[in-house]
């Protein structure tokens, strides 16, 4: 199980690498400036000195093991896949909202269907952390409970918002994910698998 931590901004105290953008995402068709290309390019291990106690010291900078850990997942295959799928999902939800504004419910529902089928693969990227898995699971459950009914405008807006947060912070903690699941709950979406809820409530 992956640790539920986020990428932290690493600011080296010296050297050519001077900035890491907080946005770790890749927009399709958009080149990223060289200084923000990958986490690995910024994370210069030579800047770190390991003390006997295992603490990493770099001219006053101290990072815990948990803080460093996400670097292993950053821009891994599942990270890239997740960002690609999230970009698609956000686009679908945006187009669904636009279609509703244009009073084209059929087009809106079609977009939502296309969003829904992205989720199982997105869930396969849950190695990014339990926070990521928690949100993806909640979205999958929400659709299952809707049972084919098109979510309303508020619900699609909430999904769009949550997907954007997930794209911006795919390594978010479980507590942060919990806040996003609450956003879904606040618009009447059920974040748990229906059969599990039925089982737990059967006593």
């Amino acid at each position, binding site marked *: 199980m992956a640790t539920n931590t986020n990428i932290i901004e690493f600011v080296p105290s010296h050297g050519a690498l001077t900035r890491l953008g907080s946005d770790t995402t890749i927009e399709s068709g958009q080149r990223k400036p060289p200084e923000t290309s990958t986490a690995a390019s910024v994370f210069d291990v030579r800047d770190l000195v390991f003390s006997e106690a295992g603490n990493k010291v770099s001219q006053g900078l101290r990072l815990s093991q948990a803080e460093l850990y996400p670097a292993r997942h950053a821009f891994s295959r599942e990270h890239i896949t997740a960002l690609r799928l999230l970009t698609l999902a956000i686009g679908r939800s945006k187009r669904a909202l636009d279609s509703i504004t244009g009073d084209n419910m059929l087009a809106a529902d079609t977009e939502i269907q296309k969003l829904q089928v992205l989720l199982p693969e997105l869930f396969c990227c849950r190695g990014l952390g339990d926070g990521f898995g928690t949100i993806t699971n909640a979205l999958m459950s929400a659709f299952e409970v809707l049972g084919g009914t098109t979510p309303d405008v508020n619900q699609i807006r909430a999904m769009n918002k949550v997907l954007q947060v997930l794209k911006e912070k795919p390594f978010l903690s*479980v507590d942060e994910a919990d806040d996003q699941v609450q956003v879904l709950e606040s618009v009447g979406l059920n974040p748990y698998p*229906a059969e599990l809820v039925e089982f737990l409530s*059967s006593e």
Partner: protein
Amino acid sequence: MSRAYVETTVLADALLKPGPRANAATSALRRYDESLLPVYSIKEFKAGALAKYVWFHGKLVTTRSWEKTLAQLRKSAMSPFRGRWVSTAVEALEAAGHRNSDVTLGELVDKYGALATDDVVRCERYRLSLRRIIMRAWKKRRQVTSSVVDELSCYPEGDVIEERGLIELGEVNCCPKDECCLAAELRRHPENLRKMKAAIASQPPKDENVKRSQVLRSLTRPNQKLTPKQCRHLGDAVFAYFCPPDAVILTTNTTDLRPLAEALGKKAEAP
């Protein structure tokens, strides 16, 4: 002004059973001007319903397989869920395990391997769901009612944490220095203890009634210390005894609680 004295079963419904059961519990709480949650409810909740969920969650973590967890839930002698295996809820749970072997999943298995098999995906989804339900339940325990009352000085409520993927409940019992902190207050009205004992005598002779009756009797005797185990056996009697006279005990277990409450001129209602 109407007041509810909230018993463990209602707390568990409100916190651990998302959906209709939780809605019914929270709606019931809102019917009263004031809802009082005794810490004894929190103690029973943690050692009972919450511990069952933690066990279920632990099985998902350790087996990493929904099929294996299901087998444990169904067969294991210690499974707190064994009794449910005749309900339609279980059919829904089992059916869900068979209906997702669709084309999309097949493609994902080719791409992601075991990580995408229905067994593992279901296991992970239930694990994440249960984890959220458990952690939120503990976090919200003191927020479901308008106030928390009757603090227990010998009960360390502690915290619920996650360690190596498993949820750790910490201490679930009282840790009295001498005896349970409720003892002195219970001994102040021995006549009430006798009334409750008499009420139990007219109930079916089930195990929990026998134990409760024994503890009530020992409380009326001199030089008998109330132990944490006995405190646990008192259960429903604690709610009947400590419920304020102007409040109603809110419980889904009216069968057991009503006779005790009525013996003391109090009321017990279901949500």
